[in-house]
């Protein structure tokens, strides 16, 4: 997703590289960097090990698909859409029990990954996007698209600037058709919520949503539910204040969950937000390989924004030993970037994120956010006042 390449080369690259993957020459070729196309059409660079991992991931995705189909066969096609235990107050005890069982099954299942073919349907219902859409008129998205056509605002200008810079080289996103679809989703949303308008970073998020959801309209509603319900408020508005809050919460969590790393980085005078800000604003889409990103999003849409902390902490945790022997800020950044770019195995990341990092409830995270809010507001306010008080010298 970060590897950029002209799309004409994609197919060629894929064909010419795959034959070298025979195990017998595996070790000899391990150092050779190859370019290949991943599950969602992104060109990635990696060594032969990475290609093998991706092939294993493909196989695991297939197996996971069989698990989901089997469940549909035994429980009914939309079993996971049953009223959740939290809404089921009036249900009969037996029904409650089955709902509870389903909820437990579902949580585990989702952490193991939603098969790509089911993603559009499962995301749409579990995230709340379906419900959000159902409260609006059927023609909402089409009407919106028509109404905003041809309008020029600061948001549309920025969107137009960013379209060719969003995953350049992707075989669909970087075509006139892909640009036009992404544009309609982003421009439409900029009119739906004028406080957000358009914020850079959303281009990457919306682009991936389009790739997964297949239709613009569903991608639009996913973006809406993400910004309006899943993530904390004001991540993308108002000086990114919500993002500042998340960063402070993250800085508080690191010493608790990874005390040795936190102490070492403190010594290096390294501010973890230097790398984590992009993770949170792009929801890892610019840092992790596509299937790994989408596995994070699987959980994000079901369990909520706290998942971002789990994953961010896990990336640090996975490289604990390496990070502890760094002497320079540059080395820390290189390790983290290299690590995230090569996390082709989603299970490796998610196992650390949930098993090793340990549980954090949405309640505790919310409390932490509340605690940080006043400090963030004061800081942003102070900066603004300082900037305004600088008198413009007419030299």
């Amino acid at each position: 997703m970060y590897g950029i390449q002209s799309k004409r080369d994609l197919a060629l690259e894929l064909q010419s590289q795959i034959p070298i993957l025979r195990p017998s020459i595996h070790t000899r070729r391990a150092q050779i960097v190859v370019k290949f196309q991943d599950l969602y059409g992104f060109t990635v660079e990696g060594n032969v090990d990475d290609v093998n991992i991706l092939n294993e991931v493909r196989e695991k995705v297939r197996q996971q698909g069989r698990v989901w189909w089997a469940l549909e066969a035994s429980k009914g096609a939309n079993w996971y859409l049953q009223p959740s235990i939290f809404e089921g107050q009036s249900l009969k005890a037996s029904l409650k029990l089955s709902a509870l069982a389903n909820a437990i099954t579902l949580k585990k299942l989702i952490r193991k990954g939603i098969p790509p073919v089911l993603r559009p349907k499962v995301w749409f219902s579990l995230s709340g996007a379906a419900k959000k859409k159902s409260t609006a008129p059927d023609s909402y998205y089409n009407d919106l698209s028509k109404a905003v056509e041809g309008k020029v605002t600061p948001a549309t200008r920025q969107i137009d600037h960013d379209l060719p810079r969003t995953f350049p080289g992707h075989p669909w996103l970087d075509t006139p058709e892909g640009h036009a679809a992404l544009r309609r989703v982003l421009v439409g949303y900029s009119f739906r919520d004028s406080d957000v308008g358009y914020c850079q970073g959303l281009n990457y998020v919306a682009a991936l949503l389009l790739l997964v959801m297949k239709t613009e309209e569903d991608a639009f509603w996913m973006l809406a539910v993400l910004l309006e319900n899943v993530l904390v408020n004001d991540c993308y508005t108002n000086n990114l204040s919500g993002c500042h809050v998340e960063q402070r919460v993250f800085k508080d969590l690191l010493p608790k969950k990874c005390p040795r790393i936190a102490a070492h980085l403190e010594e290096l005078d390294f501010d973890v937000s230097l790398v984590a800000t992009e993770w949170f604003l792009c929801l890892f889409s610019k840092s992790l390989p596509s299937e790994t990103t989408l596995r994070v999003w699987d959980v994000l849409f079901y369990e909520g924004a706290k998942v971002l902390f789990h994953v961010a902490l896990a990336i640090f945790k996975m490289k604990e030993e390496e990070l502890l022997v760094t002497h320079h800020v540059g080395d820390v950044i290189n390790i983290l970037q290299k690590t995230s770019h090569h996390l082709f195995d989603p299970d490796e990341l998610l196992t650390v994120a949930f098993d090793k990092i340990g549980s954090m409830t949405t309640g505790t995270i919310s409390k932490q956010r509340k605690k940080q809010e006043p400090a963030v507001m004061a800081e942003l306010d102070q900066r603004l006042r300082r900037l305004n008080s600088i008198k413009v010298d007419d030299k």
Partner: protein
Amino acid sequence: MATTGNKNINSKLVLLGDVGAGKSSLVLRFVKGQFIEFQESTIGAAFFSQTLAVNDATVKFEIWDTAGQERYHSLAPMYYRGAAAAIIVYDISNQASFERAKKWVQELQSQGNPNMVMALAGNKADLVDTRKVAAEANATGFVLQLTCLQEEAQQYAQENGLFFMETSAKTAANVNEIFHEIAKRLPRVQPQNPSGMVLMDRPAERVASASCCS
């Protein structure tokens, strides 16, 4: 912060300036010797490192190329905090970008490290040459306008303790030079070696070719 050890200086450098002024292009030219029209857009800031040998020391720059819309400026303090140097970039063909540059200078003066080495880069200097003919032909005064801006920038830099260069990421003109000049001006921690502080008016003495920086 510039830290030393065996004359190895690690120094954090931040680029600030209006969108489109050419910050990313300057960094790409300096670090990789390339010029690319459509780069993937950066969220927050992109990190690069590059080492330079200057006189008595090896300077390793940790470069933060900041990016983004106005709302992203609230993140800027995290990138310039503890920075030993800053390059404030404007586009010589865009007066508004010069005004924005001045604001960044003021923010750094009031908030940044007081010993920060600051450079003002008037980027896209190549536009002067390519448009000169056209401008003379239709007498738009474009060249005159650029010349005024250059003098204004020079004077502004002098008054505010910055050094000024016109650069072009496209032709590579003055790109290595501006980083070299910063490297030379970085304060050395060793007190017996204050040379970094007194090189104010000497031109960059080593004109490095683009290929040396890959």
